[in-house]
Protein backbone atom coordinates (compact mmCIF):
# COMPACT_ATOMS: atom_id res chain seq x y z
CA UNK A 1 0.00 0.00 0.00
CA UNK A 2 2.87 2.39 0.70
CA UNK A 3 4.03 2.25 -2.93
CA UNK A 4 0.69 3.46 -4.21
CA UNK A 5 1.60 6.69 -6.08
CA UNK A 6 -1.80 8.24 -5.37
CA UNK A 7 -1.36 7.80 -1.69
CA UNK A 8 0.06 11.05 -0.41
CA UNK A 9 -0.08 10.08 3.21
CA UNK A 10 1.12 6.47 3.47
CA UNK A 11 1.54 6.39 7.24
CA UNK A 12 -2.02 7.44 7.83
CA UNK A 13 -3.26 4.75 5.39
CA UNK A 14 -1.18 2.08 7.13
CA UNK A 15 -2.58 3.10 10.46
CA UNK A 16 -6.15 2.87 9.21
CA UNK A 17 -5.60 -0.55 7.63
CA UNK A 18 -4.03 -1.97 10.76
CA UNK A 19 -6.56 -0.38 13.09
CA UNK A 20 -9.43 -1.78 11.01
CA UNK A 21 -7.83 -5.21 11.05
CA UNK A 22 -7.37 -5.11 14.82
CA UNK A 23 -10.98 -4.11 15.38
CA UNK A 24 -12.09 -6.90 13.06
CA UNK A 25 -9.95 -9.49 14.84
CA UNK A 26 -11.24 -8.34 18.23
CA UNK A 27 -14.78 -8.67 16.87
CA UNK A 28 -14.15 -12.21 15.68
CA UNK A 29 -12.73 -13.15 19.10
CA UNK A 30 -15.65 -11.56 20.93
CA UNK A 31 -18.05 -13.32 18.59
CA UNK A 32 -16.38 -16.68 19.12
CA UNK A 33 -16.34 -16.39 22.89
CA UNK A 34 -20.00 -17.26 23.62
CA UNK A 35 -19.73 -20.34 21.43
CA UNK A 36 -16.57 -21.63 23.08
CA UNK A 37 -18.04 -20.91 26.48
CA UNK A 38 -21.23 -22.77 25.55
CA UNK A 39 -19.19 -25.93 25.15
CA UNK A 40 -18.11 -25.87 28.78
CA UNK A 41 -20.04 -27.41 31.69
CA UNK A 42 -23.46 -25.74 31.88
CA UNK A 43 -25.07 -24.33 35.03
CA UNK A 44 -27.06 -27.50 35.62
CA UNK A 45 -24.00 -29.70 35.29
CA UNK A 46 -22.11 -27.45 37.68
CA UNK A 47 -25.00 -27.50 40.16
CA UNK A 48 -25.20 -31.28 39.95
CA UNK A 49 -21.48 -31.30 40.57
CA UNK A 50 -21.96 -29.94 44.10
CA UNK A 51 -20.34 -31.95 46.91
CA UNK A 52 -22.10 -35.18 47.89
CA UNK A 53 -22.43 -36.64 51.39
CA UNK A 54 -22.07 -40.38 51.77
CA UNK A 55 -23.09 -42.26 54.91
CA UNK A 56 -20.34 -44.75 55.73
CA UNK A 57 -22.26 -46.83 58.27
CA UNK A 58 -23.77 -49.33 55.80
CA UNK A 59 -20.40 -50.09 54.21
CA UNK A 60 -19.12 -53.24 55.93
CA UNK A 61 -15.47 -54.00 56.41
CA UNK A 62 -14.00 -55.38 53.20
CA UNK A 63 -16.71 -53.78 51.03
CA UNK A 64 -16.20 -51.29 48.21
CA UNK A 65 -19.04 -48.81 47.65
CA UNK A 66 -19.45 -46.99 44.34
CA UNK A 67 -20.76 -43.44 44.22
CA UNK A 68 -20.94 -40.95 41.38
CA UNK A 69 -19.68 -37.44 41.96
CA UNK A 70 -19.73 -35.04 39.02
CA UNK A 71 -20.54 -38.05 36.84
CA UNK A 72 -17.25 -39.61 37.85
CA UNK A 73 -17.07 -42.93 39.59
CA UNK A 74 -15.66 -42.88 43.14
CA UNK A 75 -14.80 -46.01 45.12
CA UNK A 76 -15.17 -45.90 48.91
CA UNK A 77 -13.31 -48.89 50.26
CA UNK A 78 -13.69 -50.03 53.87
CA UNK A 79 -10.29 -51.68 54.25
CA UNK A 80 -9.71 -54.65 56.56
CA UNK A 81 -6.77 -54.59 58.96
CA UNK A 82 -5.00 -57.01 56.66
CA UNK A 83 -5.54 -54.79 53.62
CA UNK A 84 -4.18 -51.77 55.50
CA UNK A 85 -1.14 -53.76 56.53
CA UNK A 86 -0.57 -54.93 52.94
CA UNK A 87 -0.76 -51.35 51.72
CA UNK A 88 1.75 -50.22 54.33
CA UNK A 89 4.12 -53.09 53.54
CA UNK A 90 4.10 -52.70 49.75
CA UNK A 91 7.75 -52.10 48.78
CA UNK A 92 8.57 -49.07 46.64
CA UNK A 93 10.08 -51.44 44.07
CA UNK A 94 6.61 -52.85 43.38
CA UNK A 95 5.16 -49.39 42.73
CA UNK A 96 5.18 -47.62 39.39
CA UNK A 97 4.22 -44.25 40.89
CA UNK A 98 5.61 -44.51 44.42
CA UNK A 99 3.64 -42.84 47.20
CA UNK A 100 3.13 -43.49 50.93
CA UNK A 101 -0.18 -45.08 51.91
CA UNK A 102 -0.48 -42.46 54.66
CA UNK A 103 -0.65 -39.69 52.04
CA UNK A 104 -3.63 -41.36 50.38
CA UNK A 105 -5.89 -41.68 53.42
CA UNK A 106 -6.92 -39.29 56.23
CA UNK A 107 -5.07 -39.57 59.49
CA UNK A 108 -7.00 -41.62 62.04
CA UNK A 109 -9.25 -43.01 59.29
CA UNK A 110 -6.86 -45.51 57.70
CA UNK A 111 -9.70 -47.98 57.19
CA UNK A 112 -11.28 -45.70 54.57
CA UNK A 113 -9.76 -45.39 51.11
CA UNK A 114 -11.53 -42.99 48.75
CA UNK A 115 -10.31 -42.99 45.12
CA UNK A 116 -11.61 -42.37 41.61
CA UNK A 117 -12.69 -45.65 40.06
CA UNK A 118 -11.55 -45.34 36.47
CA UNK A 119 -8.27 -46.82 35.33
CA UNK A 120 -5.61 -44.17 34.82
CA UNK A 121 -4.68 -45.77 31.52
CA UNK A 122 -7.74 -45.25 29.33
CA UNK A 123 -10.55 -45.02 31.83
CA UNK A 124 -12.11 -48.48 32.13
CA UNK A 125 -13.96 -49.24 35.34
CA UNK A 126 -11.76 -51.26 37.70
CA UNK A 127 -12.72 -54.58 39.31
CA UNK A 128 -12.27 -54.73 43.09
CA UNK A 129 -10.50 -57.42 45.16
CA UNK A 130 -8.52 -58.51 42.14
CA UNK A 131 -4.94 -58.54 40.98
CA UNK A 132 -1.73 -59.64 42.64
CA UNK A 133 -2.10 -57.28 45.59
CA UNK A 134 -5.83 -57.74 46.07
CA UNK A 135 -6.63 -54.11 45.26
CA UNK A 136 -8.10 -53.63 41.80
CA UNK A 137 -7.43 -54.90 38.32
CA UNK A 138 -8.43 -53.42 35.00
CA UNK A 139 -10.46 -55.57 32.60
CA UNK A 140 -9.20 -53.62 29.62
CA UNK A 141 -5.44 -53.96 29.46
CA UNK A 142 -4.57 -55.64 32.72
CA UNK A 143 -3.31 -52.79 34.92
CA UNK A 144 -3.32 -53.58 38.64
CA UNK A 145 -3.66 -51.42 41.74
CA UNK A 146 -3.02 -52.30 45.38
CA UNK A 147 -5.28 -51.78 48.40
CA UNK A 148 -4.15 -48.17 48.49
CA UNK A 149 -5.09 -47.61 44.84
CA UNK A 150 -1.45 -47.39 43.78
CA UNK A 151 -0.52 -48.79 40.39
CA UNK A 152 1.55 -51.97 40.61
CA UNK A 153 1.31 -53.08 37.02
CA UNK A 154 1.06 -51.09 33.77
CA UNK A 155 0.09 -49.87 31.28
CA UNK A 156 -1.64 -47.47 33.72
CA UNK A 157 0.94 -44.74 34.39
CA UNK A 158 -0.24 -43.32 37.71
CA UNK A 159 -2.04 -44.08 40.96
CA UNK A 160 -5.80 -43.70 41.28
CA UNK A 161 -6.34 -40.04 42.19
CA UNK A 162 -7.86 -39.25 45.56
CA UNK A 163 -10.74 -36.74 45.34
CA UNK A 164 -11.09 -33.90 47.83
CA UNK A 165 -13.20 -35.10 50.75
CA UNK A 166 -13.64 -34.59 54.51
CA UNK A 167 -15.05 -36.67 57.35
CA UNK A 168 -18.26 -35.39 58.96
CA UNK A 169 -20.21 -36.31 62.09
CA UNK A 170 -17.22 -37.76 63.88
CA UNK A 171 -16.31 -40.02 61.01
CA UNK A 172 -19.62 -41.72 60.20
CA UNK A 173 -19.97 -40.00 56.83
CA UNK A 174 -17.86 -38.18 54.26
CA UNK A 175 -18.44 -35.21 52.00
CA UNK A 176 -16.83 -35.60 48.59
CA UNK A 177 -15.87 -32.45 46.72
CA UNK A 178 -14.64 -30.20 49.53
CA UNK A 179 -11.24 -29.94 51.14
CA UNK A 180 -12.35 -28.55 54.53
CA UNK A 181 -15.55 -29.18 56.55
CA UNK A 182 -16.74 -25.54 56.52
CA UNK A 183 -16.21 -25.03 52.81
CA UNK A 184 -19.41 -24.24 50.95
CA UNK A 185 -19.78 -25.34 47.31
Amino acid sequence: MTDNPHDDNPRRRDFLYIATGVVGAAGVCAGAWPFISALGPDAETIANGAPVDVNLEPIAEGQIAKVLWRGRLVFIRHRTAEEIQKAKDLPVSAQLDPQEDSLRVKEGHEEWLVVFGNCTHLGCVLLGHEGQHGGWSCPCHGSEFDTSGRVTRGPAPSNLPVPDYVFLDGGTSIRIGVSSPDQTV
Partner: protein
Amino acid sequence: MQDFSDKWVPTNRVIKWIEDRLPILGLIYSSFIAFRVPRNINYWWTFGAVLLVMLVIQIITGLFLAMGYVPGTATAFDSVVHIDRNVNYGELIRSMHANGASFFFIAAYFHILRGMYYGSYKAPREILWIVGVIMYFIMMGTAFLGYSIVWGQMSAAAATVITSVFKAVPLVGETLYEYAMGGYAVGNPTVIRFYALHFLLPFILVGFTIIHVWALHVVANNNPAGVEIRTRRDTLPFWPYMILKDLVMVGIVLFIYAFVVFFLPRALGHAINYIPADLTVSPDHIAPEWYFGPFFTILRAIDNTMVGIIAMFGAVGILVFMPWLDRSPVKSARYRPVYRFFFLTWVFSALVLGWLATKSTDGSGVFAWIAHIVSGSPVDEGCYKLLAQLATAWYFAFFFPILPIVSLLEKPKPVPASIAEDAVAHLPKVKTPPQAPIVQSQQD
Protein backbone atom coordinates in the same frame (compact mmCIF):
# COMPACT_ATOMS: atom_id res chain seq x y z
CA MET B 1 -3.24 -31.82 -17.93
CA GLN B 2 -4.38 -31.54 -21.48
CA ASP B 3 -8.13 -31.89 -21.87
CA PHE B 4 -9.20 -34.51 -24.43
CA SER B 5 -12.89 -34.52 -23.66
CA ASP B 6 -15.72 -33.63 -26.01
CA LYS B 7 -17.33 -30.24 -25.47
CA TRP B 8 -21.05 -29.99 -24.94
CA VAL B 9 -22.98 -27.62 -27.17
CA PRO B 10 -26.63 -27.24 -26.12
CA THR B 11 -29.07 -27.01 -29.01
CA ASN B 12 -32.30 -26.49 -27.10
CA ARG B 13 -32.96 -22.75 -26.71
CA VAL B 14 -34.20 -22.94 -23.13
CA ILE B 15 -31.22 -25.00 -22.03
CA LYS B 16 -28.92 -22.66 -23.88
CA TRP B 17 -30.54 -19.72 -22.06
CA ILE B 18 -29.87 -21.37 -18.71
CA GLU B 19 -26.40 -22.46 -19.73
CA ASP B 20 -25.41 -18.88 -20.65
CA ARG B 21 -26.30 -17.79 -17.13
CA LEU B 22 -25.29 -20.81 -15.02
CA PRO B 23 -23.26 -23.44 -16.90
CA ILE B 24 -24.23 -26.18 -14.47
CA LEU B 25 -25.40 -28.72 -17.03
CA GLY B 26 -22.17 -28.27 -18.95
CA LEU B 27 -20.26 -28.86 -15.72
CA ILE B 28 -22.17 -32.08 -15.08
CA TYR B 29 -21.68 -33.17 -18.68
CA SER B 30 -17.95 -32.53 -18.65
CA SER B 31 -17.48 -34.09 -15.20
CA PHE B 32 -19.54 -37.26 -15.46
CA ILE B 33 -20.15 -37.95 -19.13
CA ALA B 34 -17.36 -36.63 -21.32
CA PHE B 35 -14.59 -36.86 -18.68
CA ARG B 36 -11.82 -39.11 -20.04
CA VAL B 37 -10.41 -41.92 -17.95
CA PRO B 38 -7.37 -44.09 -18.80
CA ARG B 39 -8.66 -46.99 -20.86
CA ASN B 40 -6.74 -49.60 -18.86
CA ILE B 41 -8.17 -48.98 -15.37
CA ASN B 42 -9.37 -52.15 -13.66
CA TYR B 43 -11.98 -53.00 -11.02
CA TRP B 44 -9.87 -51.55 -8.23
CA TRP B 45 -10.91 -48.18 -9.67
CA THR B 46 -14.60 -48.78 -8.95
CA PHE B 47 -14.50 -48.38 -5.17
CA GLY B 48 -14.71 -44.60 -5.35
CA ALA B 49 -18.19 -45.03 -6.78
CA VAL B 50 -19.00 -47.59 -4.07
CA LEU B 51 -17.90 -45.04 -1.45
CA LEU B 52 -20.19 -42.43 -2.93
CA VAL B 53 -23.13 -44.82 -2.89
CA MET B 54 -22.41 -45.81 0.72
CA LEU B 55 -22.24 -42.15 1.78
CA VAL B 56 -25.65 -41.53 0.23
CA ILE B 57 -27.06 -44.64 1.92
CA GLN B 58 -25.69 -43.51 5.32
CA ILE B 59 -27.18 -40.05 4.93
CA ILE B 60 -30.61 -41.33 3.91
CA THR B 61 -30.85 -44.09 6.53
CA GLY B 62 -29.35 -41.73 9.12
CA LEU B 63 -32.01 -39.14 8.38
CA PHE B 64 -34.74 -41.70 9.02
CA LEU B 65 -33.07 -42.90 12.22
CA ALA B 66 -32.86 -39.28 13.34
CA MET B 67 -36.66 -39.12 13.20
CA GLY B 68 -36.87 -41.70 16.00
CA TYR B 69 -33.66 -41.17 17.88
CA VAL B 70 -33.70 -39.03 21.05
CA PRO B 71 -30.21 -38.09 22.26
CA GLY B 72 -29.27 -38.01 25.94
CA THR B 73 -28.17 -40.60 28.49
CA ALA B 74 -31.73 -41.16 29.73
CA THR B 75 -33.37 -41.59 26.34
CA ALA B 76 -30.83 -42.63 23.71
CA PHE B 77 -30.74 -46.36 24.29
CA ASP B 78 -34.51 -46.67 24.69
CA SER B 79 -35.11 -44.69 21.53
CA VAL B 80 -32.80 -46.97 19.56
CA VAL B 81 -34.69 -50.01 20.87
CA HIS B 82 -37.90 -48.18 20.02
CA ILE B 83 -36.69 -47.76 16.43
CA ASP B 84 -35.84 -51.45 16.32
CA ARG B 85 -39.13 -52.66 17.71
CA ASN B 86 -41.84 -50.15 16.99
CA VAL B 87 -41.01 -48.10 13.91
CA ASN B 88 -42.19 -49.69 10.68
CA TYR B 89 -39.12 -51.26 9.10
CA GLY B 90 -37.10 -49.51 11.81
CA GLU B 91 -35.00 -52.60 12.40
CA LEU B 92 -34.22 -52.77 8.70
CA ILE B 93 -33.24 -49.11 8.51
CA ARG B 94 -31.06 -49.42 11.58
CA SER B 95 -29.43 -52.56 10.21
CA MET B 96 -28.76 -50.72 6.95
CA HIS B 97 -27.13 -47.86 8.82
CA ALA B 98 -25.04 -49.95 11.24
CA ASN B 99 -23.86 -52.38 8.55
CA GLY B 100 -23.62 -49.56 6.04
CA ALA B 101 -20.78 -48.15 8.12
CA SER B 102 -18.94 -51.47 7.77
CA PHE B 103 -19.33 -51.55 4.00
CA PHE B 104 -18.33 -47.90 3.83
CA PHE B 105 -15.06 -48.85 5.52
CA ILE B 106 -14.52 -51.94 3.34
CA ALA B 107 -14.81 -49.73 0.27
CA ALA B 108 -12.50 -47.13 1.81
CA TYR B 109 -9.86 -49.75 2.58
CA PHE B 110 -9.94 -51.15 -0.95
CA HIS B 111 -9.80 -47.62 -2.32
CA ILE B 112 -6.78 -46.69 -0.18
CA LEU B 113 -4.95 -49.97 -0.86
CA ARG B 114 -5.51 -49.42 -4.59
CA GLY B 115 -3.83 -46.03 -4.27
CA MET B 116 -0.90 -47.45 -2.35
CA TYR B 117 -0.39 -50.35 -4.76
CA TYR B 118 -0.54 -48.36 -7.97
CA GLY B 119 1.25 -45.29 -6.62
CA SER B 120 -1.71 -42.95 -6.93
CA TYR B 121 -0.31 -40.78 -4.13
CA LYS B 122 2.61 -39.60 -6.25
CA ALA B 123 2.94 -36.38 -8.22
CA PRO B 124 0.74 -34.83 -9.45
CA ARG B 125 -1.86 -36.41 -7.12
CA GLU B 126 -0.46 -35.46 -3.69
CA ILE B 127 -3.30 -33.10 -2.79
CA LEU B 128 -5.92 -35.51 -4.07
CA TRP B 129 -4.32 -38.13 -1.80
CA ILE B 130 -4.15 -35.84 1.24
CA VAL B 131 -7.79 -34.80 0.82
CA GLY B 132 -8.56 -38.53 0.84
CA VAL B 133 -6.70 -39.02 4.12
CA ILE B 134 -8.64 -36.11 5.65
CA MET B 135 -11.89 -37.70 4.51
CA TYR B 136 -10.85 -40.98 6.07
CA PHE B 137 -10.25 -39.21 9.40
CA ILE B 138 -13.70 -37.61 9.21
CA MET B 139 -15.24 -40.98 8.42
CA MET B 140 -13.58 -42.53 11.45
CA GLY B 141 -14.81 -39.69 13.64
CA THR B 142 -18.33 -40.02 12.29
CA ALA B 143 -18.46 -43.76 12.89
CA PHE B 144 -17.07 -43.38 16.41
CA LEU B 145 -19.67 -40.73 17.25
CA GLY B 146 -22.47 -42.81 15.75
CA TYR B 147 -21.45 -45.84 17.73
CA SER B 148 -21.24 -43.82 20.95
CA ILE B 149 -24.68 -42.26 20.68
CA VAL B 150 -26.43 -45.65 20.79
CA TRP B 151 -25.39 -45.49 24.47
CA GLY B 152 -25.10 -49.22 25.08
CA GLN B 153 -22.35 -50.68 27.25
CA MET B 154 -19.80 -50.80 24.46
CA SER B 155 -20.77 -47.27 23.34
CA ALA B 156 -19.99 -45.95 26.81
CA ALA B 157 -16.68 -47.83 26.88
CA ALA B 158 -15.73 -46.47 23.46
CA ALA B 159 -16.67 -42.93 24.45
CA THR B 160 -14.71 -43.15 27.71
CA VAL B 161 -11.59 -44.65 26.18
CA ILE B 162 -11.40 -42.37 23.16
CA THR B 163 -12.23 -39.13 24.97
CA SER B 164 -9.48 -39.80 27.53
CA VAL B 165 -7.25 -38.67 24.65
CA PHE B 166 -8.13 -35.09 25.60
CA LYS B 167 -7.00 -35.63 29.19
CA ALA B 168 -3.61 -36.83 27.98
CA VAL B 169 -2.88 -33.40 26.46
CA PRO B 170 -0.23 -31.70 28.62
CA LEU B 171 -1.18 -28.65 30.74
CA VAL B 172 -4.62 -27.83 29.33
CA GLY B 173 -5.82 -31.46 29.19
CA GLU B 174 -8.31 -31.25 32.03
CA THR B 175 -9.97 -28.04 30.77
CA LEU B 176 -9.99 -29.28 27.20
CA TYR B 177 -11.64 -32.47 28.38
CA GLU B 178 -14.35 -30.59 30.29
CA TYR B 179 -15.08 -28.40 27.28
CA ALA B 180 -15.17 -31.38 24.94
CA MET B 181 -17.44 -33.39 27.27
CA GLY B 182 -19.59 -30.51 28.49
CA GLY B 183 -19.07 -31.80 32.02
CA TYR B 184 -16.58 -33.50 34.28
CA ALA B 185 -17.00 -36.91 32.66
CA VAL B 186 -18.79 -38.51 29.72
CA GLY B 187 -22.43 -37.73 30.42
CA ASN B 188 -25.71 -36.36 29.13
CA PRO B 189 -24.27 -33.23 27.45
CA THR B 190 -21.63 -35.43 25.82
CA VAL B 191 -24.14 -37.74 24.17
CA ILE B 192 -26.18 -34.81 22.90
CA ARG B 193 -23.21 -33.02 21.33
CA PHE B 194 -21.92 -36.29 19.88
CA TYR B 195 -25.26 -36.64 18.14
CA ALA B 196 -25.14 -33.10 16.76
CA LEU B 197 -21.66 -33.78 15.39
CA HIS B 198 -22.63 -37.19 14.05
CA PHE B 199 -25.36 -35.47 12.07
CA LEU B 200 -23.04 -32.74 10.82
CA LEU B 201 -19.88 -34.59 9.79
CA PRO B 202 -21.35 -36.59 6.90
CA PHE B 203 -22.28 -33.32 5.22
CA ILE B 204 -18.76 -32.03 5.72
CA LEU B 205 -17.77 -35.27 4.03
CA VAL B 206 -20.01 -34.37 1.10
CA GLY B 207 -18.12 -31.08 0.81
CA PHE B 208 -14.78 -32.86 0.84
CA THR B 209 -16.07 -35.32 -1.74
CA ILE B 210 -16.63 -32.41 -4.11
CA ILE B 211 -13.09 -31.15 -3.48
CA HIS B 212 -11.74 -34.68 -3.95
CA VAL B 213 -13.49 -35.10 -7.30
CA TRP B 214 -12.44 -31.62 -8.35
CA ALA B 215 -8.79 -32.43 -7.61
CA LEU B 216 -9.22 -35.73 -9.46
CA HIS B 217 -10.56 -33.97 -12.53
CA VAL B 218 -7.59 -31.61 -12.59
CA VAL B 219 -4.95 -34.36 -12.54
CA ALA B 220 -6.96 -37.27 -14.06
CA ASN B 221 -7.03 -40.87 -12.87
CA ASN B 222 -3.91 -42.88 -12.30
CA ASN B 223 -4.03 -46.38 -13.82
CA PRO B 224 -2.52 -49.86 -13.38
CA ALA B 225 0.44 -49.01 -15.61
CA GLY B 226 1.17 -45.88 -13.58
CA VAL B 227 2.05 -43.84 -16.67
CA GLU B 228 0.22 -40.59 -17.40
CA ILE B 229 -2.29 -39.91 -20.18
CA ARG B 230 -0.55 -38.51 -23.27
CA THR B 231 -3.00 -38.81 -26.14
CA ARG B 232 -6.72 -39.16 -26.56
CA ARG B 233 -6.04 -42.74 -27.63
CA ASP B 234 -5.01 -43.48 -24.02
CA THR B 235 -8.50 -42.67 -22.76
CA LEU B 236 -12.17 -43.60 -22.83
CA PRO B 237 -15.12 -41.37 -21.93
CA PHE B 238 -16.66 -41.75 -18.46
CA TRP B 239 -20.03 -42.52 -19.96
CA PRO B 240 -20.68 -45.33 -20.72
CA TYR B 241 -17.41 -47.14 -20.07
CA MET B 242 -16.59 -46.13 -16.51
CA ILE B 243 -20.12 -45.64 -15.24
CA LEU B 244 -21.16 -49.13 -16.26
CA LYS B 245 -18.00 -50.67 -14.84
CA ASP B 246 -18.63 -48.79 -11.58
CA LEU B 247 -22.20 -50.03 -11.51
CA VAL B 248 -21.08 -53.65 -11.81
CA MET B 249 -19.02 -53.31 -8.63
CA VAL B 250 -21.72 -51.25 -6.88
CA GLY B 251 -24.12 -54.08 -7.71
CA ILE B 252 -21.81 -56.75 -6.30
CA VAL B 253 -21.15 -54.81 -3.10
CA LEU B 254 -24.83 -53.96 -2.60
CA PHE B 255 -25.70 -57.63 -3.08
CA ILE B 256 -23.36 -58.71 -0.27
CA TYR B 257 -24.48 -55.72 1.81
CA ALA B 258 -28.13 -56.68 1.38
CA PHE B 259 -27.32 -60.24 2.40
CA VAL B 260 -25.70 -59.04 5.62
CA VAL B 261 -28.47 -56.49 6.31
CA PHE B 262 -31.18 -59.12 5.91
CA PHE B 263 -29.64 -62.32 7.22
CA LEU B 264 -26.72 -61.36 9.47
CA PRO B 265 -27.81 -57.97 10.82
CA ARG B 266 -25.97 -58.33 14.14
CA ALA B 267 -23.02 -60.42 13.00
CA LEU B 268 -20.55 -57.54 12.88
CA GLY B 269 -21.59 -55.94 16.18
CA HIS B 270 -21.08 -56.79 19.84
CA ALA B 271 -23.97 -58.31 21.79
CA ILE B 272 -22.96 -56.33 24.86
CA ASN B 273 -24.06 -53.10 23.17
CA TYR B 274 -27.62 -54.31 23.72
CA ILE B 275 -27.15 -53.65 27.43
CA PRO B 276 -27.83 -49.99 28.33
CA ALA B 277 -24.74 -47.99 29.25
CA ASP B 278 -23.72 -48.05 32.90
CA LEU B 279 -20.70 -45.96 33.78
CA THR B 280 -20.09 -47.89 37.00
CA VAL B 281 -19.18 -51.15 35.26
CA SER B 282 -17.06 -51.93 32.22
CA PRO B 283 -17.68 -54.80 29.84
CA ASP B 284 -15.37 -57.75 30.56
CA HIS B 285 -13.76 -57.43 27.21
CA ILE B 286 -13.59 -54.23 25.24
CA ALA B 287 -13.22 -54.40 21.50
CA PRO B 288 -14.05 -51.83 18.84
CA GLU B 289 -15.94 -52.43 15.62
CA TRP B 290 -13.76 -54.42 13.20
CA TYR B 291 -12.82 -51.41 11.10
CA PHE B 292 -11.01 -49.78 14.03
CA GLY B 293 -9.27 -53.03 15.01
CA PRO B 294 -5.73 -52.25 13.80
CA PHE B 295 -5.70 -48.83 15.45
CA PHE B 296 -7.07 -50.17 18.73
CA THR B 297 -4.33 -52.82 18.81
CA ILE B 298 -1.66 -50.21 18.14
CA LEU B 299 -3.02 -48.15 21.05
CA ARG B 300 -2.81 -51.14 23.37
CA ALA B 301 0.51 -52.45 22.12
CA ILE B 302 2.30 -49.40 23.49
CA ASP B 303 2.43 -49.11 27.26
CA ASN B 304 2.97 -45.37 27.45
CA THR B 305 -0.50 -43.81 27.11
CA MET B 306 0.59 -40.65 25.31
CA VAL B 307 2.83 -42.52 22.85
CA GLY B 308 0.05 -45.04 22.28
CA ILE B 309 -2.41 -42.29 21.39
CA ILE B 310 0.05 -40.60 19.05
CA ALA B 311 0.80 -43.92 17.36
CA MET B 312 -2.91 -44.67 16.95
CA PHE B 313 -3.57 -41.42 15.11
CA GLY B 314 -0.15 -41.52 13.46
CA ALA B 315 -1.02 -44.88 11.89
CA VAL B 316 -3.44 -43.02 9.62
CA GLY B 317 -1.67 -39.66 9.61
CA ILE B 318 1.53 -41.14 8.25
CA LEU B 319 -0.26 -41.76 4.94
CA VAL B 320 -0.04 -38.03 4.34
CA PHE B 321 3.74 -38.31 3.98
CA MET B 322 3.74 -41.22 1.55
CA PRO B 323 4.26 -39.02 -1.53
CA TRP B 324 7.54 -37.80 -0.05
CA LEU B 325 8.70 -40.97 1.66
CA ASP B 326 8.53 -42.85 -1.63
CA ARG B 327 11.31 -41.49 -3.88
CA SER B 328 10.79 -43.87 -6.80
CA PRO B 329 9.81 -42.29 -10.14
CA VAL B 330 7.83 -45.42 -11.05
CA LYS B 331 4.26 -45.44 -9.74
CA SER B 332 2.78 -48.88 -10.20
CA ALA B 333 3.84 -51.77 -7.94
CA ARG B 334 3.47 -53.95 -11.03
CA TYR B 335 6.92 -52.79 -12.06
CA ARG B 336 8.34 -52.59 -8.52
CA PRO B 337 8.71 -56.16 -7.22
CA VAL B 338 10.57 -55.16 -4.05
CA TYR B 339 8.07 -52.46 -3.17
CA ARG B 340 5.26 -54.88 -3.91
CA PHE B 341 6.73 -57.47 -1.56
CA PHE B 342 7.04 -55.00 1.30
CA PHE B 343 3.61 -53.54 0.58
CA LEU B 344 2.03 -56.98 0.88
CA THR B 345 3.84 -57.61 4.18
CA TRP B 346 2.47 -54.29 5.37
CA VAL B 347 -1.08 -55.32 4.44
CA PHE B 348 -0.46 -58.53 6.35
CA SER B 349 0.72 -56.61 9.44
CA ALA B 350 -2.47 -54.52 9.32
CA LEU B 351 -4.58 -57.68 9.11
CA VAL B 352 -2.72 -59.20 12.08
CA LEU B 353 -3.31 -55.99 14.04
CA GLY B 354 -7.01 -56.17 13.20
CA TRP B 355 -7.23 -59.79 14.29
CA LEU B 356 -5.43 -59.05 17.56
CA ALA B 357 -8.11 -56.49 18.44
CA THR B 358 -10.35 -59.45 19.24
CA LYS B 359 -7.80 -60.85 21.72
CA SER B 360 -6.69 -59.76 25.16
CA THR B 361 -3.14 -58.48 25.02
CA ASP B 362 -1.80 -58.16 28.53
CA GLY B 363 1.42 -58.78 30.33
CA SER B 364 4.94 -59.23 29.27
CA GLY B 365 5.24 -60.65 25.78
CA VAL B 366 8.72 -62.09 25.62
CA PHE B 367 8.37 -64.08 28.84
CA ALA B 368 5.05 -65.49 27.74
CA TRP B 369 6.62 -66.81 24.55
CA ILE B 370 9.59 -68.26 26.40
CA ALA B 371 7.16 -70.02 28.74
CA HIS B 372 5.20 -71.25 25.75
CA ILE B 373 8.25 -72.65 24.01
CA VAL B 374 10.05 -74.03 27.07
CA SER B 375 7.20 -75.44 29.11
CA GLY B 376 4.42 -75.64 26.56
CA SER B 377 2.15 -73.18 28.38
CA PRO B 378 -0.72 -72.05 26.14
CA VAL B 379 -0.38 -69.08 23.78
CA ASP B 380 -1.83 -66.47 26.10
CA GLU B 381 -2.41 -62.74 26.41
CA GLY B 382 1.29 -62.07 26.84
CA CYS B 383 2.06 -63.81 23.56
CA TYR B 384 -0.54 -61.72 21.78
CA LYS B 385 0.96 -58.60 23.27
CA LEU B 386 4.35 -59.34 21.73
CA LEU B 387 2.68 -60.08 18.39
CA ALA B 388 0.86 -56.77 18.66
CA GLN B 389 4.11 -54.93 19.30
CA LEU B 390 5.91 -56.64 16.42
CA ALA B 391 3.04 -55.99 14.01
CA THR B 392 2.92 -52.36 15.14
CA ALA B 393 6.65 -52.01 14.57
CA TRP B 394 6.35 -53.50 11.11
CA TYR B 395 3.35 -51.34 10.27
CA PHE B 396 5.41 -48.20 10.87
CA ALA B 397 8.69 -49.60 9.58
CA PHE B 398 7.10 -50.00 6.17
CA PHE B 399 6.66 -46.23 5.90
CA PHE B 400 9.98 -45.46 7.52
CA PRO B 401 12.68 -46.52 6.84
CA ILE B 402 11.67 -49.26 4.38
CA LEU B 403 9.80 -47.06 1.91
CA PRO B 404 12.53 -44.45 1.33
CA ILE B 405 15.29 -47.08 1.22
CA VAL B 406 13.47 -49.43 -1.14
CA SER B 407 12.46 -46.61 -3.41
CA LEU B 408 16.07 -45.45 -3.73
CA LEU B 409 17.71 -48.86 -4.15
CA GLU B 410 15.14 -50.80 -6.13
CA LYS B 411 15.65 -51.22 -9.88
CA PRO B 412 12.16 -51.15 -11.40
CA LYS B 413 11.13 -53.23 -14.39
CA PRO B 414 10.54 -51.34 -17.66
CA VAL B 415 7.20 -49.54 -17.74
CA PRO B 416 4.97 -49.45 -20.84
CA ALA B 417 5.53 -46.54 -23.20
CA SER B 418 1.88 -45.52 -23.04
CA ILE B 419 -1.48 -46.43 -21.56
CA ALA B 420 -2.68 -47.52 -24.99
CA GLU B 421 0.24 -49.91 -25.33
CA ASP B 422 -0.47 -51.35 -21.88
CA ALA B 423 -4.16 -51.72 -22.67
CA VAL B 424 -3.45 -53.55 -25.92
CA ALA B 425 -0.92 -55.81 -24.20
CA HIS B 426 -3.61 -56.78 -21.70
CA LEU B 427 -6.33 -57.55 -24.22
CA PRO B 428 -7.91 -60.95 -23.58
CA LYS B 429 -6.11 -63.76 -25.39
CA VAL B 430 -8.40 -65.09 -28.12
CA LYS B 431 -7.95 -68.71 -29.11
CA THR B 432 -8.74 -68.42 -32.82
CA PRO B 433 -6.37 -65.94 -34.46
CA PRO B 434 -7.93 -62.52 -33.93
CA GLN B 435 -9.23 -60.51 -36.80
CA ALA B 436 -7.43 -57.22 -36.98
CA PRO B 437 -10.26 -54.87 -35.81
CA ILE B 438 -10.16 -55.96 -32.12
CA VAL B 439 -7.53 -53.42 -31.35
CA GLN B 440 -9.25 -50.72 -33.30
CA SER B 441 -12.59 -51.26 -31.62
CA GLN B 442 -10.91 -50.21 -28.38
CA GLN B 443 -10.38 -46.74 -29.72
CA ASP B 444 -13.55 -45.50 -28.10
